[in-house]
């Protein structure tokens, strides 16, 4: 750490180099303007590797190039999906003391899962019939059943899942990863977020914010419908030809201006950013162009499945499937970090995994939306040889209680309330020890008791698998070297690392 690491404003080439967070990198400027503009200069032109998002070498050995983080917003119910608890099944209807918010206990009734659990594959890992397609892939997963976090509330729990802190203002994990590793394709954002069409998660963009880091590291929201990115195309129907001509005019004006303002690299950076924008306009739609995919692939991801009509909120697998398929295409195109949300809109309703008002209804809504797409994604990555270089993570901001909830439902049973004391994540792909289960909750599935891990340990694990040491990846802000994992000691979960 060094005080000179502070970034003064962009004034020199060096600062340009730091600040050209093109979002999407840099390119040779000489192609933009007449050669002679640069010919007489002994100055270096900004090289592609000078962008803050230029690819960097991981500091730990790792083959992983990309990460897909499948985020089940609302908090998926571990006791109905992966964390099989025979004792809970046996004690259905019994009253226990339940801490439903920090330090606040109430009498509550145990609620057995209505799901049927079975062991799957050679590993014999448990998975319920809520996720039948995924169950076939258990041998690829490392399931961590003993995660804990610090908040019972969506807002702060989401922030902690994404940024390590329950308070606002810190960079999200995708920002940390792109800060540490840069990104491979400079014509696409390095950190992409895809949202559920039912809305963004609680706190919206703070979940993919770069916090106190420069905006170059923030997530870019990518829609699977056109236009994919905000303002990707013009509002008034300007054609691509016209846009090119406008950019050419801007370049001509800027070229004249640059001649009379030598030595200011930020001017060149702005000129470059227009070419990048122009490239992005072509590359972003291309990443979305599923006409390049085979019919079999489209079918596998569930894109042809109709929207179910039994529930007004049901989407079926086609939406999340499309996002998973686009995620795979992004991996192929060198996007570093991709987060896909399942569930969106206000917390508390069945529009997310927040099953207060009936866990069965919630599972019936959301499990079919994700199970087939996730299974397809794992299959697809594997058969294309991408699974070794892609890390896939699945989880939410917390899990759910083994008891029936009445607190938020006016006394109506059948739902489950938030539970940050013991919940499940799984990892798959590059560097992950496949087919193992780590940690356990108590016999009712309420709190982690065997090998408990905090979310910060999960974050350390993700960084580790991507080739970054969580203790060494620091960013200086507010008088100290900040880490994703914060000041409390964290350790990668060794058991899930191959």
């Amino acid at each position, binding site marked *: *750490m*060094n*005080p*000179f690491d502070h970034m*003064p404003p962009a*004034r*020199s*080439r*060096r600062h340009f180099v730091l600040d*050209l*967070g*093109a979002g999407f990198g840099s390119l040779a400027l000489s192609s933009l303007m007449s050669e002679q503009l640069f010919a007489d200069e002994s100055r270096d032109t900004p090289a592609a*590797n000078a962008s*803050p998002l230029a690819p960097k070498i991981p*500091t730990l*050995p790792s083959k992983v190039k990309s990460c897909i983080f499948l985020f089940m917003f609302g908090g998926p119910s571990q006791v109905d999906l992966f964390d099989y608890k025979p004792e809970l099944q046996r004690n259905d209807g019994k009253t226990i003391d339940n801490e439903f918010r920090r*330090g606040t206990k109430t009498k509550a009734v145990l609620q057995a899962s209505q799901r049927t659990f079975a062991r799957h594959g050679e590993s014999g890992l448990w998975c319920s019939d809520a996720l039948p397609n995924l169950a076939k892939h258990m041998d690829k997963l490392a399931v961590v059943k003993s995660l804990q976090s610090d908040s*019972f*509330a969506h*807002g*702060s729990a989401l922030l902690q899942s994404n940024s390590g802190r*329950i308070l*606002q203002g810190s960079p999200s994990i995708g920002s940390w990863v792109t800060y540490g590793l*840069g990104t491979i394709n400079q014509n696409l954002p390095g950190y992409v977020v895809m*949202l559920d069409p039912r*809305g*963004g998660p609680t*706190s919206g963009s*703070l979940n993919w914010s770069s*916090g106190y880091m420069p*905006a170059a590291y923030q997530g*870019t929201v990518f829609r699977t419908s056109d236009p994919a*990115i*905000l*303002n990707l195309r013009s*509002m008034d129907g*300007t054609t691509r030809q016209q*846009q090119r*001509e*406008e950019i050419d*005019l801007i370049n001509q*004006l800027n070229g004249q*201006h640059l001649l*009379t*303002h030598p030595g200011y690299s*930020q001017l060149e950076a*702005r000129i470059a*950013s*227009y070419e990048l*924008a122009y490239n992005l306009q072509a590359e972003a739609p291309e990443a979305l162009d599923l006409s390049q995919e085979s019919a079999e692939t489209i079918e596998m991801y569930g894109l042809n499945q109709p929207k179910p009509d039994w529930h007004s909120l049901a989407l079926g697998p086609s939406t999340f499937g499309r996002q998973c398929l686009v995620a795979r295409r992004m991996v192929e195109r060198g996007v570093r970090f991709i987060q896909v949300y399942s569930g969106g809109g206000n*917390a508390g309703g069945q529009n997310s995994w927040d099953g207060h008002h009936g866990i069965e209804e919630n599972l019936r809504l959301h499990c079919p939306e994700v199970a087939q797409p996730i299974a397809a994604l794992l299959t697809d990555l594997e058969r294309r040889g991408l699974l070794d270089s892609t890390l896939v993570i699945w989880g939410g901001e917390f899990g759910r209680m083994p008891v029936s909830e009445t607190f*938020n439902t006016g006394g109506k049973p059948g739902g489950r309330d*938030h539970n940050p004391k013991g919940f499940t994540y799984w990892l798959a792909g590059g560097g992950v020890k496949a087919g193992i289960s780590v940690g356990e909750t108590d016999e009712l599935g309420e709190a982690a008791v065997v090998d408990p891990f905090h979310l910060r340990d999960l974050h350390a694990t993700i960084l580790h698998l991507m080739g970054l040491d969580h203790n*060494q*990846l620091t960013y*200086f802000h*507010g*008088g*100290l*070297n900040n880490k994703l994992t914060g000041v409390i000691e964290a350790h990668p979960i060794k058991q899930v690392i191959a």
Partner: protein
Amino acid sequence: MTNQSGIRWNSSARMAFWRPSFSFKILWRIPLLFVAATALAAEPPEQFFEAKIRPLLIDRCITCHSGNEPDGGLSLESKEGWADREVITPGDPEHSLLITAVRYQDASLQMPPADSDVDRLSENEIQLLERWIREGAVDPRSSQGTETGPRLRARKFKITQHDINHWAYQPIRDPSLKYVDQEPSQVIDRLIDKKLQPMGVIRSSQATPRELVRRAYFDLWGLPPDPEAVMAFQRDPSDAAWSALIDKLLASPHYGERWGRYWLDWVRYAETNGYERDGNKANAWRYRDYVIESFNHDKPYDRYLIEQLAGDLLIADEQLTLEQTPDRWKDAVIATGFYRLHIWDDEPDDTEAAELDDLDDIMVTTGAAMMGMTTGCNRCHDHKFDPFSQVDYYSMLDLFRDIDPYGLSKKGGGGRGTGRISSFLCSEQVINSWRAEQQQKIEAIEKKIATAGDSEKNTLQEQLKQLKDEQPPYDQTLAVNPPAHPRKATYVLARGDYQSPQQQVFAAIPQLFDTLSKGRSQIAPQADQAQQQVTASVTHTPVRNRIDFARWLTAPHHPLTARVLANRVWQNHFGAGIVPTPDDFGYTGIAPKNEELLDHLATQFQRGGWSIKNLHRVIMNSQAYRMSSQARPEGNSAALDHDPDNSLFWRQNLRRLDAEAIRDSMLAYSGELTDKASGPSVYTTLSAEILETANPVSVSTWSTSPDDQQNCRSVFLVVKRSLKDPLLESFDFANSHTPVGQRPVTTVAPQALMLLNDRFVQQRSEKIAQRLIEQTTETESPIERLWQLIYQRASTQPEQTAVTEFLQKQSAAARTEHSAWTSVVRSILNSNESIHVE
């Protein structure tokens, strides 16, 4: 340290490059001759270290023995680490403590600890270590970070001579004494020259009149000049005309709209609470208006700080009343909204911890904004670099315990109420008589209910509920009220955890300042009661309350307050501060390269009665401010060589406009800028793309303002923490969560997309194009009008050709004249010249 790509690593990071490719590189650096000579004997020691010892240390030792607080104070991350603790005697493994420990030869020193879950080192591993030590313990790793960076403090906190000598804690010295016959503005030039001369560098020449007028307008108003203003100054570019221009700009309300916004960045102003519901902070805009008005009225900065830190106490202290001193009373009430701006979680996991989080937010903001001090660290432990202990932190925090907390204590799910965070802007009698009337109405209905039939009862119940919920119809503002609860005691909290209270502490200023005043007897020539206390005490000087604290902070000899503000003003006139880290004047900040210049400004600032407008005049009337942002064609090569970053200010800096100036300029060009100068905030129309991706909670509280109100200056747009105006956000608007002394200036492709394709830019371009076409005269072509409007200059031949050719292409593509000109206008608005100040 920073590598080329701008990434930051601990000093230990490079050590992690132990993979084969790295060892290979190391090998190549070893002189061939040496390799040849030793190849038969043994591996070269560096290679042995890279191959065997570095991986071993990483695997077995570094987890604990690294970082800022390595176990046992022993870092094995660098040679300095183990050398400092003398655990290795190179050449002599038998007398190396490291070997003793790993061999378990001493029961009191066994590594890894016998009770840990880590296995003991194998015999093989130990022998490797012994061999390494025997061969001289060659270790190429160096802890460069600690050599060039700030020093870590000793574990036991104590103020050292090193601290007392830190530049920022020195008394402010007036350098102008050496320049008696010079104006304060001229002294700026002399002080800059003094730094440049030894390097043979001369200051840049003066900027053109056009550049100067644009610079002055954007600096003071955040708006472009009209062409006439430029022409007038071109006709008469005298010093007198320049001073008159500055006075004119400072006298306009646009000045406060520009500079008030800077303050709002520093105190992370926002109008919502953040988190899940991102609830509104009702009437937060009154604080924004207070800030703008304070700048416009050039309220003395010391008064301004005292009002914000202790306005509620000031009312009693100065006996301010609504009737007798309405303006001062109102300002004192509204200013305390400062304490209500922080993010606030209405559903915290732990309300006790959340209350301390809120206080911490206030501490961090007060420290950064007013004192250039980083205080976040010492919440959990003594500051690792700066001379501020954990006791200092909690003693200062205790000052704020008389503020009724934001948020009602409530456990369990769902949102909780905000508590008493507002105050009425009318007299208590008015409120009380309204309440009495209301009570009569309530009682009347309750009487009716007692006798009413079932059907009537429901209607009456509803009326009753409405009456009870009704708020007095008088203006309210975010404010601090007299406390309703007994003041909580403050304890030092181990690791910042409220469940681990240590000793109780009482309101006090940090010990450092006490040591400084004792050492120098500097504080308070005109000592009032508070300052007498300051000098009387031995260690933590108690302060009675927030007024005393604020008065101490604004006492003439406080080393930080005036410097911090003077630096901020300079920064926004040059694009960079004399201290490049405006929120951090501690060891982790960057020291000024021209301390005298900073002290001169701080002195002038105080001498001018803490007048910020005076400070603008001093700075802007200097030759330095009026320099060109370009290097002289001849003669500045020395400057480019010695100081390419212009940290000594041998020229002005070319600066990109900030988000607000970019947006407001477009409205100014199109003639659509409204004259809104105060009042509730405005919500712009958001695109479908934004609405879709935002959380519905944010969208549902986004009450889009009527179109004719949306074209106000950006400072009047709502600052909602979970949803920002995309144009402003894209151009690095303040994050509004933490104090931002300097916004980053990023250049990213989405900004280009924003200016090319956004609806707002489109609409402004259409409007400007329409005006151009309508107002074209025989004597002035649309190109000329456009160039004058946006660049305030004539177009050049190549520019005319470019536009003409562009228009021909559009015409060939059968675009209408208006549509084609809209494209031209938009291109100009996108150009570097239009969004940079030279």
